[in-house]
């Protein structure tokens, strides 16, 4: 078993997990204020595209990250206002946003760069990998943190920050109050709408950061629909973690392990069509185990288009 887990495997798992982790944090934040966000798939895609655009035209990876965050926040306005002030159904809005992201990035890819499918150009500046020799030499810690981007470092820091803010500050208390009982929060003088809007936008910034990691973290390219289900995995991580940032992050680690397992199986000669399935099967199994409960009567709580 030990020769199965190699430093490079751990390293690539952590690297691959970063966008999912950031999207999961975004989903947790939205879930806590009572907005069901399943648009992370589209938000990651917008972030990834904007990062490549920014990096290409500004000539710097940092510029790309800034544009990615900005664009994704703007994109998130649809959910922020649509699900609050306009009282739209968040499931429908999120489905629309995911398709808009997929269509719009594909359209702009063709119009701005004249290519379809994948855009790769030496002008796209990727993110630097951080090397700290003292850390790299340590087993495990070094495996995880050697040669990772600043965004990967930031993502784990953000898990801690979100946890502390949510459970140890007055802002976090109000935030949780808005999600648990909006009318009670309202009567305590909390501006529910404003909390929801700002939270969804902050979540958009986080997902934009994740999108930047997706396109500028390793490959320095943008390809159509490159979020490839990561946003949906994040939705599941939020559900598995029951809107708790630490538990949801743990769920992300599970997917990271499953993902690197599939890479590993591919290395053993299994075709990638089969190994690609592994993370989703693990996800389903984890959901089935964690949600398993006896049915009480005929009632089944459902997320429907009409809630």
């Amino acid at each position, binding site marked *: 078993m030990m020769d199965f887990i190699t430093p490079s495997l751990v390293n690539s798992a952590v690297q691959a997990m970063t966008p999912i982790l950031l999207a999961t944090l975004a989903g947790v934040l939205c879930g806590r204020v009572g907005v069901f966000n*399943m648009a992370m798939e589209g938000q990651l895609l917008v972030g990834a595209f904007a990062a490549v655009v920014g990096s290409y035209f500004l000539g710097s990876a940092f510029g790309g990250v800034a544009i990615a965050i900005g664009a994704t926040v703007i994109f998130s306005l*649809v959910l922020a*206002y*649509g699900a609050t002030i*306009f*009282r*739209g*159904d968040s*499931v*429908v*809005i999120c*489905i*629309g*946003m995911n*398709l*808009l992201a*997929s*269509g*719009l990035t*594909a*359209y702009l890819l*063709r*119009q701005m760069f004249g290519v*379809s499918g994948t855009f790769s150009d030496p002008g796209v500046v990727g993110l630097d990998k951080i090397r700290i020799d003292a850390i790299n030499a340590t087993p495990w810690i070094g495996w995880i943190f050697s040669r990772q981007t600043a965004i990967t470092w930031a993502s784990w820091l953000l898990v801690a920050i979100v946890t502390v803010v949510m459970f140890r500050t007055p802002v976090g208390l109000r935030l949780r109050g808005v999600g648990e009982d909006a009318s009670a929060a309202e009567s305590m003088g909390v501006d529910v709408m404003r909390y929801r809007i700002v939270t969804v936008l902050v979540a958009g910034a986080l997902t934009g950061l994740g999108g930047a990691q997706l396109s500028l973290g390793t490959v320095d390219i943008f390809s159509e629909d490159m979020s490839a*289900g990561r946003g*949906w995995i994040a*939705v*599941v991580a939020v*559900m598995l973690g029951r809107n708790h940032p630490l538990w949801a992050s743990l769920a992300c680690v599970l997917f990271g392990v499953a993902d690197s397992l599939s890479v590993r199986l591919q290395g053993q000669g299994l*075709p990638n*069509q*089969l190994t*690609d*399935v592994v993370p*989703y*099967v693990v*996800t*389903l199994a984890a*959901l*089935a185990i964690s*949600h*398993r*409960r006896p*049915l009480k009567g*005929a*009632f*089944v*709580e*459902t*997320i*429907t*288009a*009409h*809630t």
Partner: protein
Amino acid sequence: MSAASARRLLRIPAVPLAILIGVLLGALLILASGRNPLTAYSAILVGALAPENLPDTLNWAVPLVGMTLVAALPLRGGMVNLGGDGQLVVGALVAALVPLYLPAPGPVAAVAVILAAMLAAGAYASLAARGETRFGIPMLISSLLLSYPAVGIASYVVGFPLRDTTTGLAQTVMIPASVRLPAITGPLNIGLFLMAAVGAAVVFFDRRTVAGYELRMRGLNARFAGYGGVRLASQTVRIMFASGAIAGLVGAIIVLGSQYRYQDGALVTPGYTWSGLMAALLAGGEPLAAIGAGAFFAALQTGGFAMQRETAIPRVLTMVLQAIIILFLAIRHGVGRRSS
């Protein structure tokens, strides 16, 4: 004056207004990329509705309207089936493989193949329903997550063990000519009639049957329907089975009617599932309106091909238009919001 004109604006029915907004925003997008929106839109209109192009539009509408019904049926009861891709692939794969091993005369075999495809896809969809009723996984998630293994495994099956090794592509061996669906004219085959019959059946189910009434009641208020004696769990499984079976039929029609084999990616790439879902949402799950919305999106997309040919504006623009229409309706008119 401005208040009066604003009131008049509000009186435009929601769906045409949403389409108008979509068309206007799309025009801005075309203008921003330095093209003429009028030429683009006229290319779409001609490409979709000119008499010589109508068969193409209808041919594209068969799977799209089919996947619209797949989404609309559960939506009528307030459920969302996001697993259309997986169910479509299961149905198509069964339809492509069964004829290779089934020794039966043509028409009998064709009927058996279609039923097998519907059964398999329906069973796969009811798996997602059981995920909700048995394990408490929201069907929204279980149906979507089940799509990925289906697509992946189908891709493996046609790529390796059952690949047609005489071609360089990941696809199965061609099905015998005897089970293929007879053509009507041009690209059209009798799959069109099959889909029309299914559409009529869904409309009839929705309006004239007890089960259809129970489903609508659930859509209005699931709790009330439950207290009224509707067995929600088994209803979920049954409706999802029916929804998946329609997806299986769509897959069978594509395989038996136009491609004559299972080609990797040929079912998922056109995005029938998601366009169908959007059409169903546009109609709020009402079957007849959903069929109309599906046909509208099919015309839009067929016109998109013509636009891309003639003006070099990418046809993904039509997908952007669809998304804008749905977003506008969801935000401005609360599509999917319970009217209370």
